[in-house]
């Protein structure tokens, strides 16, 4: 924190001495308190990406390299052309710090913000997804409190707005105990025409600036700078920096905004999120090459006596700024009145390229419109942590537990068990698009009305793998999340990410960020997946324990399925059908659930990614799909492939007879074979009569596949082939363990 004196006032800012010098050198006047506050917010890490921008360049140019990308990084959301005149907009971002302090409103307003981003692209938000991270729930009331109220915040807000929450994922790890992660993702669907007519920036002088929605209050002031700082004990005092959400108003904003855009009179549109009016006005005018004159007294406030500093920096929720053509003002205001939304014409754009805010006659802000969005970049140092060598070479300890005991423990562990407790609280059906619903597939599948075409989407990250090897870990995340939608029959089309890391001023934290970005960029280039947007959340550290969170580059993938008959789901369909493992299992127990749940260690050799192999595996599946040979598919994730097979048995209460003899020849010990989390593997169900053809297709593509056994009507998984004897798992018993973990921890 730096203290700055302006006249007799003193202001504490997060700007560095250098940045203040830079501001003073580039402005023609001594900045006022309000102006300094605006710089402070806009040049915060959260708004300016000053530490991450140098690295994020690796993701640039998606629009140039892929013809179906309509909007890429730097926009409010990524937009892709999905054919037949439709487009999809999607984005993911973080709301970590507010949620760690006030989980209910922190999570709720995270949803609110991401919805507005999608709305700005001119399309209707149709689905939400929420990847979350908490400390382990067992014996920890603090983590339980955060978990309970984050989920409730998402549910109450999302449900009320009528946007289904169709997916998400969660991990519990002690590094998130005091700094939970709440990432929120939203998808919007519209016609290409909607997107092309979508308002963007204030390109025309003389247009009206209309503020619509909630009133401006003292809540959320400096929310952004608070997100760009490490959480401390004193952070509790920052609770006023957490905004309060109002989903009912948001629902009306969605409808009023879409109706307003439809008129064609809205030329620019920006939601008021982090940085409030300062951010919205400077982006609208700065990017549009115009300036503006704003009358502060016109801004409707929640309480009297708010000064310009508070008004310009307030992050009160549910507000939108519209740039309206002069001849359309009446029509736009009529729409706002219909929805009984508060609104005010607060100013007009001009050609001055200067943002001027007047408090009556007094000019309180006068800044070049682009100044706020042009923060100096920060080159950060990076250094590989020394402790990693020790961790990676960690050996798997011996255990006296039988495989059956291990599998029963794994299936009931917090990171593997059933997450129904969460998604039952989310309305995942509203909108009547949800075709593959929560729990029935690896991804959420949505229909596009009037078309025989489906959107599949999924989110995810494996923090334990990324902790040991951020480069391969981030690639592995992509393999896993793409695998999720592929297992439902989709083809990945585009990616957005949300990078959650520690303090970038610390070289070791920055190294994790840097390597993760390189991993994602390299993988996306090799597999031809455009990166169409991203968000970076740094400073996820906790001063109490002096530790950073495990690195969490969250991935969101969207893809398409053409034709209802090509949608594939997870549950086993028919006893007698063959169970086939696709992909190679390697000695990669590093960062596995087996290591953490059974041995309480975090190290070992983590999974590596071979892009060529991934590519040929996807190609094989695509070929099998075309030949309609896959009856069920589930990609292999935490806990290894037996867990995957068990999950495929649950819904239909079938079992599996497996002989792993074929795999034991692979030079792996039983533990590596069963519990490694090697990425890029799938379990598929196929008709045994097709096995020969499948094998020859796989041989041609050099993809290892193994026939493990077949589906049985008896609800038991029987695993033969080990010298230690047959393993028998009772489906009813393991399902009960799988189901009861979270309810037992969360229900009194």
């Amino acid at each position, binding site marked *: 924190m730096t203290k700055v004196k302006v006249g007799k006032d003193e202001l504490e800012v997060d700007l560095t001495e250098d940045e203040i010098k830079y501001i003073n050198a580039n402005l023609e006047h001594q900045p006022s308190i309000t102006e300094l506050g605006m710089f402070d917010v806009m040049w915060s890490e959260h708004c300016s990406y000053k530490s991450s921008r140098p690295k994020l360049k690796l993701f640039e140019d998606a629009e140039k390299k892929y013809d179906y990308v309509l909007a890429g990084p730097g926009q409010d959301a990524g937009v892709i052309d999905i054919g037949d005149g439709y487009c999809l907009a999607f984005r993911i971002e973080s709301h970590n710090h507010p949620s760690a302090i006030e989980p209910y409103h922190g999570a709720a307003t995270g949803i609110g913000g991401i919805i507005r981003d999608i709305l700005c692209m001119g399309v209707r938000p149709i689905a939400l997804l929420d990847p979350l991270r908490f400390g382990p729930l067992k014996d920890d009331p603090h983590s339980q409190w955060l978990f309970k109220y984050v989920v*409730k915040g998402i*549910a*109450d807000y999302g*449900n*009320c*707005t*009528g946007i289904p929450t169709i997916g998400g994922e969660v991990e519990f790890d002690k590094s998130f105990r005091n700094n939970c992660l709440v990432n929120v993702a939203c998808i919007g669907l519209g016609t290409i025409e909607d997107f092309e007519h979508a308002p963007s920036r204030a390109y025309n002088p003389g247009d009206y600036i209309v503020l619509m929605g909630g009133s401006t209050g003292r809540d959320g002031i400096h929310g952004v700078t608070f997100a760009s700082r490490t959480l401390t004990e004193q952070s509790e005092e920052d609770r006023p920096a957490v905004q309060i959400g*109002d*989903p*009912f*108003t948001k*629902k*009306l904003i969605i409808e009023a905004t879409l109706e307003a855009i439809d008129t064609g009179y809205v030329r620019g549109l920006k939601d008021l999120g982090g940085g409030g009016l300062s951010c919205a006005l400077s982006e609208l005018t700065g990017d549009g090459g115009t300036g503006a004159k704003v009358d502060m007294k016109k801004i409707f406030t929640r309480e009297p006596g708010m000064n310009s500093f508070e008004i310009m920096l307030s992050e009160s929720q549910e507000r939108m700024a519209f740039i309206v053509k002069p001849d359309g003002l009446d029509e736009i205001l009529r729409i706002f009145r*219909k*929805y*009984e939304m508060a609104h005010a014409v607060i100013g007009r754009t001009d050609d001055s390229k200067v943002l001027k805010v007047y408090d009556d006659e007094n000019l309180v802000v006068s800044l070049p419109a682009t100044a706020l969005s042009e923060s100096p970049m920060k080159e950060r140092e990076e250094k590989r942590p020394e402790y990693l060598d020790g961790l990676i070479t960690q050996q798997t300890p011996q255990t006296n537990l039988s495989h059956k005991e291990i599998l029963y423990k794994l299936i009931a562990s917090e990171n593997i068990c059933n997450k129904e407790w969460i*998604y*039952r*609280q*989310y*309305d*995942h*059906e*509203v*909108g*009547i698009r*949800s*075709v593959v*619903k929560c729990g*029935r597939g690896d991804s959420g599948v949505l*229909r596009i*009305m009037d078309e025989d075409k489906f959107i599949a989407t999924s989110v995810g990250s494996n923090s334990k793998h990324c902790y040991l090897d951020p480069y391969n870990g981030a690639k592995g995340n992509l393999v896993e999340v793409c695998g999720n939608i592929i297992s439902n029959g989709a083809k990945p089309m585009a990616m957005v990410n949300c990078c959650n890391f520690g303090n970038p001023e610390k070289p070791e934290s920055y190294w994790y960020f840097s390597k993760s970005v390189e991993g994602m960029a390299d993988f996306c280039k090799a597999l031809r997946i455009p990166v169409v947007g991203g968000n970076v959340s740094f400073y996820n550290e906790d001063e109490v324990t002096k530790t950073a969170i495990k690195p969490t580059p969250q991935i969101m993938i969207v893809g398409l399925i053409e034709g*209802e008959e090509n949608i594939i789901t997870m549950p086993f369909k028919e006893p007698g059908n063959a169970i086939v493992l696709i992909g190679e299992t390697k000695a990669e127990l590093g960062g596995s659930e087996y290591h953490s749940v059974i041995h309480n260690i975090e190290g070992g050799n983590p999974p590596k990614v071979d892009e060529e192999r991934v590519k040929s595996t996807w190609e094989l599946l695509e070929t099998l799909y075309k030949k309609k040979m896959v009856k069920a598919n589930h990609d292999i994730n935490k806990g290894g492939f037996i867990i995957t097979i068990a999950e495929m048995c649950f819904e239909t209460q079938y079992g599996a007879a497996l002989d792993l003899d074929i795999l034991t020849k692979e030079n792996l010990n039983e533990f590596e074979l069963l519990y490694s989390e090697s990425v890029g593997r799938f379990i598929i169900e196929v008709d045994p009569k097709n096995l020969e053809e499948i094998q020859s297709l796989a041989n041609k593509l050099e993809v290892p596949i193994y026939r493990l056994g077949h589906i049985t009507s008896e609800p038991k998984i029987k695993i033969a082939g080990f010298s230690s004897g047959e393993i028998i798992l009772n489906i009813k018993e393991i399902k009960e363990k799988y189901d009861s973990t979270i309810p037992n921890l969360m229900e009194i």
Partner: protein
Amino acid sequence: MSIKVAVIQFPGSNCDLDTLHVLNEVMNIEAELIWHNEFVGSKFDAAILPGGFSFGDYLRSGIIAAHSPAIEEAKKMLKDDKPILGICNGFQILTEAQLLPGALLKNDSLKFICKWVHIRVENTHTAFTNQMKEGQVLDIPVAHGEGRYFTDKLTELKENKQIIFRYSDPQGSVGDASNPNGSLDNIAGVCDLERKCLGLMPHPERASEMILSPNKTTHGIKFFQSMIHFITSGEI
């Protein structure tokens, strides 16, 4: 005869478009979205109050919408023997407006619940169930935080055969295990004394297309078929 159905939009309704889609695209009947204070009942043959969070469900679910001018119009329609269906939040509004008996309280789990359930048809003599069979079990989803039905006039409701749906298991057996929210007597839906106004917590519009149903059923369309039958024949 052509039929025209109103789907009434309150601020915060969010199943309005879904209901309209099913009426237009699945049932192929004329239906229109009408903003609540512009609704005129005499222009329509039936009205549906869709699900959602009218007025944010602030104060209490449905209570503010129950004072909308649309409710006066709905009352006039009922007097003219025109049917009214309340789905989820629409049901909550109709009980708050006292067009239907009872009240919807917070779920006993204190949590929102979104889930496919089964309901048993208790009575087919209404404007929205006449094409169903008594004892028939329907697949249908619920999605609500305040769906626990309560009344202090249970005996009266039973005598008047106003209990139309009860939560059950797939075989039609009614018990605590199949009660998703703690509703009194597993009640999922009730009708008025004239049997032309019906409210239920589950969502027929989400159960009207095979592609959306985990069991590949389309039981939701029976509500709308019944409505059409009543409008065209006057038979309950």
